[in-house]
C-alpha cells in the first residue's frame, strides 16, 4: 500500500512538473521576445515574429516566450484587439509572461487592476524574467 501511495505521489509530481517544462525540454532553439513599448505596430510585430519562429522551426523544436512589461503590457490586456492571435499562439506552445511591477503601477493609474488575458503568467519583474531566461540559454530578441 505504501508503494502505491509513493507511486501516486511521484505521478502527481511529474504531472505537475512535466507540463510546465515540456515545451522547453526538447526545444532546439529558445527565444524570449520582449514587448515593452506603447506602439501598436510593435504588438503586431512581436506576434508576427513569434508566429514566424513557430512556422520555421516547428512548435516542438522551438521554445518561445513573450515577456510584456512597461507600456508593452497592454498586449496582454484581456480585450486587446490581438487576443485571437494570442489564443492561436498559445495553442502552439508560445507562453506569455506579465510583469507584476507593471501591473501594480498600472493599477495605481487606473484605479483598478487591469484584467489580463487568462493565459498570461504573472512574473515578479519582466526584466528579471528575461535575465533568468537568458541565463537558461534563451536568446533575447526585441522586435
Amino acid at each position: 500500500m505504501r508503494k502505491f501511495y509513493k507511486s501516486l505521489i511521484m505521478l502527481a509530481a511529474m504531472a505537475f512538473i512535466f507540463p510546465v517544462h515540456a515545451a522547453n525540454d526538447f526545444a532546439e532553439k529558445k527565444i524570449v521576445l520582449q514587448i515593452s513599448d506603447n506602439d501598436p505596430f510593435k504588438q503586431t510585430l512581436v506576434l508576427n515574429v513569434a508566429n514566424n519562429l513557430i512556422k520555421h522551426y516547428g512548435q516542438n523544436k522551438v521554445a518561445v516566450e513573450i515577456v510584456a512589461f512597461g507600456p508593452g503590457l497592454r498586449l496582454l490586456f484581456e480585450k486587446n484587439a490581438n487576443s485571437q492571435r494570442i489564443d492561436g499562439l498559445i495553442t502552439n506552445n508560445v507562453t506569455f509572461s506579465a510583469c507584476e511591477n507593471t501591473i501594480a503601477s498600472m493599477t495605481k493609474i487606473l484605479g483598478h487592476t487591469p484584467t489580463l488575458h487568462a493565459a498570461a503568467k504573472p512574473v515578479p519583474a519582466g526584466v528579471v524574467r528575461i535575465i533568468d531566461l537568458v541565463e537558461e540559454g534563451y536568446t533575447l530578441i526585441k522586435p
Partner: protein
Amino acid sequence: MIKKPSEKILIVAAIIGTMAASTAQAANWLMLQGTERDAAAPRAKVWGFIQPEYSSTSNTPLQAGPWKGQDAIFNQMRPNLKSNKGFNVLRARLGVRGTGLPLDSNVNYFLLAEFGNNGITAGDNGSAKLTDASVTLNHIDGARFRVGQFKTPGSEEGLQAIHVFDYINFTGATNGLLLERFFDGDGSAAGDANRPNGSVGAFRDIGIQMFDTFKVNDWEHSYAVMLGNGNGINRADNNDSMETYLYWSSEQVYAGAGARREGWKLFAWNQDGKRTLTAAGAGEYDRTRSGLGTTFKKGKQRAGFEYITADGMIFNGSDGGAVPGTLNNLGTATASFNVETTGEADGYYLHYGYALTNELELDLRYDVYNRMTDVAAKERKFDTLTVGAQYFFNKKSRLIVNYEARNAEAPNLASAHAANQILDGMDDRLSAQLLIIF
C-alpha cells in the same frame, strides 16, 4: 468639344487603355471612424490625405433663358464656379486620433481638419476648417456614445471614408440631397445671390450618437441613433428642433479588416429635422431624408446600390442655370441659389468595379437624380454614367480618372422649352485625381 456619346466612349476607352484597384466597401464605418482598437491604439496617431485634381468640361454656354450665352453653373468647376477647367486641391486633410490615455481603451478621440478648396472651406474665403472633433465613450456594452462633430449615420456614399471612395465626384442624388448647403433664404429675393451661409454639411453634424456592433457568427449587425443640431458644422444650433438620425446595417463578413474588408452589407437609414430660413421665405421647414442599399466586395469584384428619397428643403440649383451673382442679359435680375422648401426628390445609384490586377481597377457607375418630383413643371431629371479607372501606385497612393457622361432634362416640359434647351448644354466631365494617404 466633348459631346457625342461615341466620342465619349472613345475617350474613356483611350484613358482606360493608358492606365493600368477600389472599393464599394463593405466596411463598418461606425466602428472604423468612431472607435479605436482595444488596448492596441496609439495615444495619438497623426494621419491625413491630399487630393489634387484636374477637371474639365467643354464650357458650353447657356442655350436659352435670361442668361443665354453666359456660363452655365453645371459646366463650371466646384467650388468656386469661375472656370470650366483647371487644377484644384480638392481635399487636404490632417488629423489625429487615438486613446489619450493608452491604458484606458474606453475613451477614444478623433480630430480632423480640412485645408483643401471645397464646399467646406470655400464659403469662408478658403480658411481651414475643422471637419471632425469627437470623443467616443465605450464603457457600456451595446451602447457606445460618440459626442461632438462627426459624420452622421446615413448614406453609404456620405458615411464611407472619402479616401477609399472609388470616384472623384459624388452621385447626383448624394450631391443634391445629402451634401447639404445651408442658406438664409430660399432664393426668391431680387438682387440677392443667396449664397450658402457657411460650409456645406459634409455629411456631418454636431451632436451625440449611441451605436454599437454585434457579431453573430460571420454576420455583423450595427445600429446608430443620433441627435444633432441639423445646422451644419462648426457652429451652434439655430432653432429649437433637433435632428434625428437612425441607422441599421447587417453585414456578412467574408475576409479582411478595415476600410477594404470583403463582405456583403445591407443598410437602411433615416434623417429628420427642421431648417430655419431667416431671409426670403423666412420660416421653419421640415426636412427628411431616407435611404436603403447594399454593398458587396469579394475578390476582384465590388458593387453597390442605394436608393435615396427626400422630402423638404430641396436644393434647386440656380436661376436659369446661371452662376449665382451674375446679372441677366437685360441687367434686371441677379442669379441666385434656390431652395424648394416643401419639394420632394429621389434618386439612386448602381456601381460595379472590377480589379484587373492589384494595381488597376475599372469602375462603372450609373446614377439618377429626380429633383422636384411633386411639381411637374419644376421636375428635373439628371442621369450620369461614370466610367472610371483607378491605378494604385501602392496601398496608400492612387490615381483616379473619371469620365462622366452627363444628361439632364425637364421631363414634363416640351423639348423646345427653355429649361430643356439649357439642360441640353450640360457637358460631360473629365476628371483626374491623385490621392496620397499618410
